[in-house]
């Protein structure tokens, strides 16, 4: 499109391409605009109003009041803090772990490789609800395997109420989130490692580089786009951690997160009962944080 169409013929072609292009896009656009773009716009507009469950239409415009209230809301600030703890802990560990696993398995023969890849992907496929109910049992104070194993190996003396104790609950949730997050990065890293330019690797080996040097100096830079993508998706995933919180602790024991608090504010009966405007304001803040973090990761990756 950079070049201006020179003749009437190519102008007709452009028109034809535009019309047929949009016809092909139409079915998809109906869903995309209807169920993604419009709700997004409503979300932003609503965050500036006092709309609640019973409001017809948009509610009264209150400017930035919801956002100012949020910064005075201790529950929100705690939820924000927890969300950041989850992101800051899980993103680097997921990345490092999946990088290690991938580099250990990518040279294995086809069957073994896909077996390992499948196993690490299984927790994702199993589904958050099934995963959560079994972990809840495993963490159980009396009948859980965690207490049994740790006690019989002598690591702890008394049963620990993992999910009821605010010292441990958030970490328990991070552990489950970790097991359900590494699947996709491993698949991505395995294929990125397989695509590394072999001639560069061989050249480095001829020059006497150690395996370690080959990895960091030759392979790692080539995998940067993959790493970036993994960072972004893992960040988004961690920010969205919801089912675990709702089903395990209902936001108790110091595990409230922004995502859960949005749900709680919008749908549970509280003093802010069904306050959609307030909940949407949180959604907007969350989206801004994710946008900023993604942009930051892009920038860091580009500089390298």
């Amino acid at each position, binding site marked *: 499109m950079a070049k201006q169409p020179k003749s009437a013929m190519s102008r007709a072609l452009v028109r034809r391409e535009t019309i047929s292009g949009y016809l092909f896009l139409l079915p998809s656009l109906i869903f995309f605009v209807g169920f993604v773009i419009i709700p997004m716009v409503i979300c932003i507009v609503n965050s500036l109003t006092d709309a609640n469950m019973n409001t017809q239409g948009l509610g009264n415009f209150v400017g930035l009041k919801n956002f100012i209230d949020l910064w005075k809301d201790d529950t929100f600030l705690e939820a924000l803090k927890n969300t950041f703890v989850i992101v800051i802990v899980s993103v680097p560990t997921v990345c490092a772990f999946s990088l290690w696993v991938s580099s250990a398995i990518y040279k294995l023969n086809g069957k073994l490789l896909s077996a390992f890849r499948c196993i690490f992907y299984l*927790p994702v496929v199993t589904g958050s609800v099934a995963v959560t109910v079994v972990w809840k049992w495993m963490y159980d104070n009396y009948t859980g395997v965690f207490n049994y194993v740790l006690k019989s190996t002598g690591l702890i003396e008394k049963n620990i109420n993992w999910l009821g104790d605010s010292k441990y609950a958030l970490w328990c949730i991070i552990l489950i989130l970790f097991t359900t997050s590494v699947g996709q990065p491993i698949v991505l890293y395995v294929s990125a490692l397989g695509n590394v330019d072999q001639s560069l690797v061989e050249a480095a080996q001829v020059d006497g580089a150690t395996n370690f040097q080959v990895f960091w100096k030759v392979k790692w830079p080539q995998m940067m786009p993959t790493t970036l993508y993994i960072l972004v998706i893992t960040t988004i995933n961690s920010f969205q951690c919801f089912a675990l919180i709702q089903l395990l602790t209902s936001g108790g024991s110091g595990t409230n997160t922004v995502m859960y608090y949005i749900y709680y504010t919008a749908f549970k009966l509280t003093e802010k009962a069904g306050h959609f405007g307030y909940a949407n304001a949180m959604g907007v803040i969350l989206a801004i944080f994710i946008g900023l973090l993604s942009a930051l990761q892009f920038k860091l990756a580009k500089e390298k």
Partner: protein
Amino acid sequence: MKDTSNRSKAYKVFSMIVLIILALLFLFPLYWIVTGAFKTGQDIYATTPAWLPSQWTMDNFAKLFDRRSAPLFEIGALVGPTVPGAIRWLVNTVFMAVAAMLLTCITAAMAGYALAKKRFIGRAILFSLIVCAMALPKQVILIPLLKEMSALNLYDTLWAVIFPTVGWPFGVFLMKQFSEGIPGEILEAARVDGASEWRTFSTIVLPMVKPGIGALAIFTFINSWNDYFMQLVMLASNSKYTISLGIATMQAETSVDTGLLMAGATLAAVPIIVVFLVFQKYFTQGITMGAVKG
């Protein structure tokens, strides 16, 4: 030289052992769900875990199927035979996942082709809008989505879960990646031969992006099956529940009956795992292609 090769061999053995241990740990929750479903109450509440059921029992499944019952399906006036509620949940889930999958594949294949191969006005803007939307957390828009669905009279129907899944732009993005690979000359030749746009698409483009459609189909199916948050917000009545939502509510009602929950979790997890294992080749491909130009 010998020393380093010995060391690297030792490292290989060591890393293999660690990998196997990790793999077993990752498999354990699944093992625990499935065996738990067949354990007696005595085994389940034992303080010393029964690593294998001391006595295999179907009681948990019997209890699961003995709960509320519902018609197998309701399409307008057509009402199916009465079956246990859990079976109805499974039927709902399959319907939801299949509908989301079909709609996503059709719309995304068309849109991906247009974005990759058509040089139309507004293409660049539209594409960046799609990429930006992908980076946003879907859950953020759930509340406005809920209001929209009640305005459209779709609240508490499976369509309220299906439509937003179809609208999610990942599929379009993925299909664009796959369509980039179609050689322009072939399309040009088809045009010179006077093939209509639709004919070009259905006879030339579709066969070439088949692997992409396979990847997207399985990806959408699994994601839709497991998208618990959306189901939780959009579905209200028991007969509309999906299997995930059904188990989650069961957990809230009977937080002590672990055996029952494991039976439910088995019912939810095993079908989707089988689907995954059968189609995992496509799945891996889809994940990788989506990232190529992330």
